[in-house]
């Protein structure tokens, strides 16, 4: 269990990068980016987890109860918002590219060489 959580986070990052590198389609690539980003969620939340810890919400719980780290959760929340917005922006760019050149294959989009 010790290494499972962090190992999964690392694996998600690597596999996401692989998918993005060989991607044939900008939309596919954008989804691979969300996969890479999800590795950061898993990593952050696994870091802040505590055995026997409750969620850091103290309604109806007596003060001093062990709770998991609230800061990583706050970072993850910010992270999720960033993820959605960046993906929306990349998709908008992809749509625009499609309008201009009729393709969203990144290999065919390339117009600049050297």
């Amino acid at each position: 269990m010790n290494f499972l959580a962090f190992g999964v986070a690392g694996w998600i990052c690597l596999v996401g990068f692989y998918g993005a590198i060989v991607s044939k389609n900008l939309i596919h690539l954008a989804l691979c980016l969300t996969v890479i980003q999800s590795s950061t969620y898993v990593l952050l939340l696994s870091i802040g987890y505590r055995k026997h810890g409750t969620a850091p919400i103290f309604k109806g719980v007596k003060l001093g109860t062990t709770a998991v780290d609230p800061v990583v959760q706050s970072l993850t929340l910010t992270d999720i918002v960033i993820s959605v917005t960046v993906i929306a922006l990349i998709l908008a760019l992809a749509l625009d590219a499609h309008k201009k050149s009729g393709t969203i294959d990144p290999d065919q989009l390339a117009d600049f060489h050297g």
Partner: protein
Amino acid sequence: MPLATLVPLQASILVLVAFGATAVALCRNTLRQILLSGVYGLLLVLLFVVLQAPDVALSMLVVTTVAYPLIVLVAIARTRAGGVDADDDDS
């Protein structure tokens, strides 16, 4: 929830998440990929719940059920409607 049930639950969801991520990243068909990524998002929601992060789980839930599918599906539909199918081969 006692640790004896929580730990195996966390472990199995983590494994599922790892498989889910692999499936999303390696799937070549964009339509199937968006479906998979919806499932993957829900798996992440489950993971966040068992990692005691209900706020994050709630965020992920609203994002993965509404925001992503909507914008990605439109993007797929739009690029296909354009006539050029660069994304259709399922290799």
